[in-house]
């Protein structure tokens, strides 16, 4: 069958293209140009496309497959970078990879694949698609160290139906690199990509400040009872749970302090003793990969990309989705809360800020 492979130029998606080609499929490589690489790295005269697009084309050359570069710069700026900056300005800690997967990768690329007459879109994500009795299911990758299911919770069932994730069953990254070696793809030992792709050099705050300078305006650090205990250099530089950048406010009355909330409207950072937490997490932009449950369900949830799942209940009432944690934690607004049943992703949502910052009296220390 004809398959479009989203090729980033890295080893993972290159191996996907190689494996599908080897299996006899008609593979079409597509690379998205998401931002001006020359500008992002601050290298004068550098090509807008950068080395990764070159690498993807060379892999396609080696495989003898068609390859196209798509100009998604405007779309990426509007759908990913702008909300990224807005989210920080709103006192949240966004996950741009989720937004990118939700818009550019799993909304636009399946459309492109259909336009090109392809049956499937394949990516190098470490997740498994399992075809169950009621249709496609999203499962964690075989290698827990590489699992990316948390980043893909917002994929819709219709999108999932179009997708292939050939690396989900791979034992580990070494196995992937070995395949790249065997297929002679030339990117076998290329280093993994780091952090956020559109801030490859320097500070994410620079990117935020360009569109939302208000996110970097100085303000007060206060305790939950409103006492001013320090100054900060921009709400956008702080994440709930963070212990750094607090200056003298890092230690109050002999207790280590962390950020427990942000109040972007008043440009305030609220600190509290380490161990502060809540058992209630409200969500927005909830996506279900199962039939939406009528009442409460028991499952495990992950509040961060890299953490062990924690037991919880998820309840939908009056259109609002609320998670009750068995043990309190300190979730960061803007991050995702993803629901799991064993290996399977059930759904998830984005953690809402006001649940954390306003009813401070509900915070338990």
């Amino acid at each position, binding site marked *: 069958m004809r398959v479009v492979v989203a090729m980033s130029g890295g080893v993972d998606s290159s191996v996907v293209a190689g494996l599908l080609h080897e299996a006899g499929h008609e593979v079409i490589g597509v690379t998205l140009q998401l931002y001006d690489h020359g500008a992002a790295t601050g290298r004068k005269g550098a090509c807008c496309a950068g080395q990764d697009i070159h690498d993807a084309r060379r892999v396609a050359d080696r495989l003898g497959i068609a390859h196209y570069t798509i100009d998604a710069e405007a779309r990426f700026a509007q759908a990913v970078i702008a909300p990224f900056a807005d989210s920080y300005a709103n006192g949240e800690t966004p996950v741009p990879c989720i937004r990118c997967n939700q818009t550019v990768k799993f909304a636009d690329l399946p459309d492109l694949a259909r*336009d090109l007459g392809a049956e499937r879109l394949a990516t190098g994500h470490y997740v498994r698609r399992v075809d169950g009795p009621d249709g496609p299911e999203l499962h964690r990758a075989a290698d827990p160290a590489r699992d990316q299911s948390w980043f893909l919770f917002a994929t819709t069932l219709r999108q999932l139906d179009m997708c292939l994730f050939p690396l989900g069953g791979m034992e580990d990254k070494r196995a992937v690199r070995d395949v790249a070696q065997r297929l002679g793809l030339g990117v076998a030992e290329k280093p993994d990509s780091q952090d956020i792709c559109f801030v490859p050099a320097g500070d994410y705050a620079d990117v935020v400040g360009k569109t939302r300078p208000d996110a970097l305006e100085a303000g007060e650090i206060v305790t939950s009872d409103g006492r001013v205990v320090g100054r900060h250099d921009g709400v956008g530089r702080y994440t709930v749970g963070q212990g750094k950048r607090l200056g003298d406010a890092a230690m109050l009355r002999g207790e280590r302090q962390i950020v427990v909330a942000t109040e972007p409207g008043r440009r305030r950072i609220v600190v509290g003793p380490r161990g502060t937490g809540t058992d209630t997490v409200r969500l927005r932009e909830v996506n279900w990969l199962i039939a939406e449950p009528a009442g409460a369900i028991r499952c495990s949830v992950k509040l961060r990309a890299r953490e062990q799942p924690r037991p919880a209940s998820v309840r939908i009432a009056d259109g609002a989705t609320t998670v009750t944690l068995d043990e309190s934690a300190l979730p960061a607004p803007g991050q995702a809360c993803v629901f799991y049943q064993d290996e399977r992703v059930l759904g998830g949502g984005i953690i809402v800020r006001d649940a954390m910052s306003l009813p401070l009296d509900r915070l338990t220390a």
Partner: protein
Amino acid sequence: MKTHYLDANATQPIRQAAREAVAATFDVVGNPSSVHGPGRAVRRILEDARETIALAFCGRPEDLIFTSGGTEADAAAIHALSANRRILVSAIEHDAVRSACPGAGIVPVLSGGIVDLHALEQRLRDGIPSLVCLMLANNETGVIQPVRQAAALCRRFGALLHVDAVQAAGRIPVRLDDLGAHSLALSSHKLGGPAGCGALLLAADAPFFAPLIAGGGQERGRRGGTPAAAPIAGFAAAVRASAGDDPLRLGALRDAAERAAVDCGAVVCGDTAHRLPNTVCLALPGAAAAVQVMALDLEGIAVSAGAACSSGKVQASHVLTAMGLGTLAGEAIRVSLPWNAVAADIDAFAAAYRRVAVRLRPALAPHAGRS
């Protein structure tokens, strides 16, 4: 799957005579600047080519400077002619011209794709010494520009005119003396010779301020570096061979392709103007140009859209934008027939275009607002 190559304005298939001339020249060892016999042998090939090409475009052999291609010819002309002059370029010039004079004033084009001569006259009326750059035929639409009238205007107001004739040469008659321009840029591979060489042909009365590359003083001190004798021999052979092309035959094939696309809902950009016989620019409303090019490629049809940068990504066409086509500027592909196109190519194009148009047009949902 057989590929049907319909992207001649990017590069032409090489002509047999050019291939033979290149191969024959490889057998001649020597540097045209050398004193000895082998040097003279290569020099003779070079000067024969110079005469062939200069005369074909009605210039003097001593005014023809070989370059690495059309881009260098444009850059060299602008470098040589613009001393103490303001530069004015049409809004539809190729990047070879635009990037050689980034601060230039822009002369707009009318909606039909033809340069606005009244606007040019208004600019020249201030009497400031100027160099004007106007292409003879546009690479994307094929629209032929009123270069003779522009040259007359330039001469009336004491301006110089450089003409990028890269797409016109080999497709329509090009006579430097008749056009009245001060210089012509030519490219070998756009008319069926090998890539890697081109020429700048100066009018007898054109000034020459300074070479772009001085080097060892080759080309009468106007372009340093050993001329590429083999490609140049192929260039001359291709110029000779192109005189035998039948523009009516190519024009009829182009018209057939155009009709087939229009039947599927395509809009022809620049159809009210005189155009090159081999070129048509087809916009399919609602279908992104980049996707059309990819989908046609997968059907074995090689066409292009806008200007592809070195990464291969397709950007919206500045030419079509300048023509006021709005969103259509991002929805247009260029079909350009090579000198050896045949009816089977057009049949294949028509069938593929229909399949692609049918597939793309139901999916016209706008991208905005989706999440």
